[in-house]
């Protein structure tokens, strides 16, 4: 976590050129910790661009025509496992966001995030951490809520959050920063990050059936 000697190379994927231009301008102006090395406006463009540029971090829009962020992940992830994806979305629909997380994104932030926070999030995912916004924490809690009458889960080891992870997520959803969560729960920031990362892993691995049922319960699909 010491200062980086080379900036994080970032690739932007968003179908709105105006938004790309805005993010690019902000990221370039406020810091030299990150360096925008390319951008794309569609799934096909993104796949070609990412394969060509090989960035450290891809800022990935969730909502795009022809498949969205999840489709980009599907096409790139196996060939370039070292590239880290961070979902950046304006979407309110939980199933979009969860789909991208499940496809392998390392975190999710909303488009209303401030530039400083975005830079911090980019640096953090590039170092291997997961980044959750309060909203994503809410989505995940909702997805894993043990509701009465829910269908039996096939692999409990995989699908349930530990009470500690649940506590961390709740505090995240309440708007606490990692540091504040750490002091609230009397654990180290590193432990908080570990919990969050394992939540992310469980989200990615939790069985498809449960999630699709959850989405259809809410008439999302």
């Amino acid at each position: 976590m010491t200062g980086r000697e080379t900036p994080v190379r970032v690739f932007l994927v968003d179908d709105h050129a105006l938004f790309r231009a805005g993010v690019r301008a902000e990221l370039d102006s406020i810091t030299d910790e990150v360096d925008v090395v390319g951008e794309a406006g569609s799934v096909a463009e993104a796949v070609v661009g990412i394969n060509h540029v090989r960035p450290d971090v891809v800022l990935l829009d969730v909502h795009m025509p022809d498949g969205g962020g999840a489709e980009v992940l599907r096409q790139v992830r196996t060939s370039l496992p070292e590239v880290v994806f961070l979902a950046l979305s304006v979407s309110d629909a939980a199933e979009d966001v969860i789909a991208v997380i499940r496809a392998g994104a390392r975190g999710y932030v909303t488009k209303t995030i401030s530039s400083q926070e975005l830079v911090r999030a980019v640096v953090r995912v590039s170092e291997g951490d997961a980044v959750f916004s309060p909203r994503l924490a809410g989505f995940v809690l909702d997805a894993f809520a043990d509701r009465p009458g829910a269908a039996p889960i096939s692999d409990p080891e995989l699908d349930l959050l530990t009470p500690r992870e649940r506590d961390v997520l709740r505090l995240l959803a309440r708007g606490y920063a990692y540091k504040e969560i750490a002091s609230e729960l009397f654990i180290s920031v590193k432990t908080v990050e570990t919990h969050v990362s394992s939540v992310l892993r469980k989200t990615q691995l939790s069985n498809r059936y449960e999630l699709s049922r959850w989405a259809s319960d809410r008439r999302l699909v």
Partner: protein
Amino acid sequence: MNPNTARVTIGGVTSQVVETVDRQPAAARQTRYPEPVRRRRGGRVVAGVAGGVADHLGVDVFWVRAVFAALTALNGVGIVAYGLLWLFVPQRDAAEPERASGSSKERQQALGLVALGIGAAVFSGLLAGPVSGWIVGPLAVALVGAAVVWREADEAQRRRWRDGAKSGLLGSGRSALWRILAGVALVAIGIGVLLVNSYGIDQLRFALLAVVATLGGVAVLTVPLWIKLINDLGEERRVRIRTEERAEIAAHLHDSVLQTLALIQKQSENPREVKRLARGQERQLREWLYGRNVEDNNQPTTLSAAIAKASGEVEDHFALTVQQVVVGDCELDPNLLALVQAAREAMVNAAKHAGVAEISVYGEVEPERVTVFVRDRGKGFDPDTVPEDRHGLADSIRGRMDRHGGEVRLRTTPGEGTEVQLYMPLHMPRSGNGSGKIGSGK
């Protein structure tokens, strides 16, 4: 769901264009040609044929009815003419203005004429020869039955116009079904009696069998045709619904989003106001696109919708961001309403006193209780030093929660912000099997 209503508020020019496009066919009909015959909708006795003819010719409806009655006496010509006109003359559109409908006196008069006409027909039939006596009787019964069924079809059509495509082919309601069945029975009895009288029971049985067999054969042969027809109908309806929905969205965008954008351009030197407008519009649009948990009168019915609404109001009033996340959902009851109001008061306090640009609101519905946290990273305060005359926390939050069996906890440190924690026990079963939804927000 009517696109017309949503379009009228902004931009006089555009909305006028829309209106003229919609009204054009009707206008063309009225101006270019003399008005065609249209059956009346109001003040009718059987099907509005006489009224329509009277409107067309510009004479009193009484005389038209009298002519029909007189023609009926001539071997029932009047009835046949009336029936044909009923078949081929369309009814007035529901939207077209209606002439003043007839008084009860006129109605009585018309009924008298109908009775007179039928009586005359029967009488002339009896006079014409001994044969027609037992023909005319059953025939009259069958005609009455047909009239009942046809009239019901008119009613069903009118209902469809009124309700949109909601009702089915025969309209809704049991009474409609009964009327149709009664009409069918009358027709069947009339024809049956006629046939029995003419041919005798045995032949009739054979004929009936043949007819049923033929009908069955035709039904089986045309099954693919029916299925295709039904599918086409469904497809057409789906396309139409989608088009209507799109028109509604377009109207909404047109209405409020463009208006907000225009306002933002005008206020561009006032960033606070710009933010407020943009946020309000964003929230409205989200609610409109994703959230449907609101009743017609715009009152939220679920906890997440209520919290979203309260957050939105605070955002609007104080020009700050309320980051709002709700996990799970349930129907509102008086206790939860009090909880939402207390949460709103907590948000208002934070907005007024904390001096921050963002407040976090987190709600969670658990099986046995509902919790709401309102948190800011602002000034914070020392609860012991709050002056006695400040009622916000004491009355609006603590008092309200106490009265409804809830609980309030407060965490605050000067310089580190405040968190108001609200707990409300939940007694009723949760709505549905996990009908939870993350409320709209950022």
